[in-house]
């Protein structure tokens, strides 16, 4: 038996790869396929789907025209769901922008340090990864709350006379998402900045490039794969986020994630929820394709 594996590389490969491939197929691809199926059938009365299934594309139409539902009244806004989707994309763009704006200099700062400091800072960036997402979000919430530390601190300093409403609005959601996803942005950018050869900047300076120009023409293009990775790793999950908008937005900020969540909860419209999930999946796929196009296997390592 062992001899058999030793001889045939095809069988070695099969043996190594099949557990992982099988797992991913059964617990990741198959569920998505089932979701695809459910998104094309009519809803059941109390959640679930109609049995036997009746095929329809109504769920997708409903997304693009929210008045397609039989329950819609006369003053219905046909772009309700598209608007929420657009709103999510807008929040995603803002969060990604700030994560990269703040994360790139941080990654650069880290890469410049001595090895010991570099490792220490690296651990500081990674620890939030290991910390429970809920705990961190609630921690931030308690700081921003009306009777929270920030408000009482500012009031003690007499900067403000009465507490500000920092929670349960879009600002809070954006801050919460940046808080949650900043480490995702820093790590890939750090990986590519660390690999960047800084003598190239000196060479650019010797050839007469002012620092800003040298950065824009040499360093930025060469570290771009890391930036693109950060963009994808932050933007895609943020657009579909639903825990943070729920906690920081207090149900007042609607994002596509919370909307999907509601379809499987109180709204009991599984097929519509599935359809929206798959539309979101499309975004994810585009993101991953962009990422794979812009990176080589070497640059993808370490993420």
């Amino acid at each position: 038996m062992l001899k058999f594996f030793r001889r045939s590389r095809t069988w070695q490969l099969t043996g190594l790869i099949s557990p992982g491939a099988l797992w991913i197929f059964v617990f990741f691809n198959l569920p998505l396929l089932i979701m695809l199926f459910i998104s094309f059938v009519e809803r059941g009365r109390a959640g679930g789907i109609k049995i036997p299934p009746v095929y329809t594309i109504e769920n997708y139409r409903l997304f693009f025209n929210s008045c397609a539902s039989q329950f819609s009244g006369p003053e219905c806004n046909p772009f309700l769901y598209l608007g929420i989707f657009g709103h999510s994309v807008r929040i995603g763009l803002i969060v990604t922008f700030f994560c990269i704006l703040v994360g790139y200099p941080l990654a650069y700062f880290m890469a410049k340090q001595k090895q010991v400091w570099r490792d220490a800072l690296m651990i500081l960036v990674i620890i939030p990864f290991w910390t429970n997402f809920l705990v961190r979000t609630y921690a931030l919430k308690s700081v921003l709350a009306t009777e929270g530390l920030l408000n009482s601190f500012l009031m003690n300093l007499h900067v403000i006379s009465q507490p500000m409403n920092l929670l349960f609005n879009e600002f809070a959601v954006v801050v919460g998402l940046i808080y949650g996803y900043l480490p995702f942005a820093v790590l890939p950018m750090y990986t590519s900045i660390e690999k960047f050869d800084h003598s190239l900047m000196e060479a650019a300076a010797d050839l007469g490039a002012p620092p800003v120009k040298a950065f824009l023409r040499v360093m930025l293009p060469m570290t771009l794969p890391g930036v693109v990775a950060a963009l994808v790793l932050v933007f895609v999950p943020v657009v579909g986020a639903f825990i943070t908008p729920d906690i920081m937005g207090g149900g007042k900020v609607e994002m596509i994630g919370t909307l999907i969540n509601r379809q499987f909860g109180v709204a009991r419209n599984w097929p519509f929820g599935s359809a929206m999930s798959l539309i979101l999946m499309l975004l994810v796929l585009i993101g991953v394709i962009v990422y794979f196009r812009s990176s080589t296997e070497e640059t993808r390592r370490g993420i």
Partner: protein
Amino acid sequence: MSVKFPVYPRQQVRLATRIGNWLLGGNAALVFGFLYLPVLILIVFSFNDTRSVAVFSGFSTEWYTGLSQNAELLEAAKNSLLVGLITTIVATTIGTLTALAMDRYRFKLRTTFDANLYLPIVIPEIVMGISLLLFFNQALFPFLQNAFGIRATTGSAYHHHLAHCLRHSLRLCDRPRPPGGLRPHPRGGRSRPRRGRMADLQTRDPAAADARHHRRRPVGFHPVAR
């Protein structure tokens, strides 16, 4: 005709560099403050003797004694540990195998497979969670019920977690190899020099071997394999 290079006074360059370094350091300090202050505050106020997380009125460990007497919470903590343990073992095992396969072998649709492994990381949590819930409640459990008569209920959080961790464990294994790590296998291997494609893997020059390793290799090719 001569190209005119701009000249920057040394003083000016030094000042700019210093300001730049200060800005970078300030940015780093602010970011780490932003990331850690809320959690630190939470830790500090967990020793507060009132419910407030804004005014520290006195030191007490009452919340921790309350914690240790809450049976439900301890039960939940036990469950978390168990799930964590099982997840770690399974994900690390499968992840290591897959990472080995991805690193040492070239096969058809390799990049597609790689992308498929990436998806669970970036996929929004809601899509992952819902699709697994549908899978368990609509497909797997009815199937188990019909085929084997097993009644099962949802524990899907655990499986979702595993799929996610599998990806992460794979990333950790998927590090670049140390340079010069690709010599011929110490046990056995060929005695006469190789020709053609595998020739420079037998040379003593680790850099050449490493460069060769990172190039695209044909299906079923591996320098260490006998």
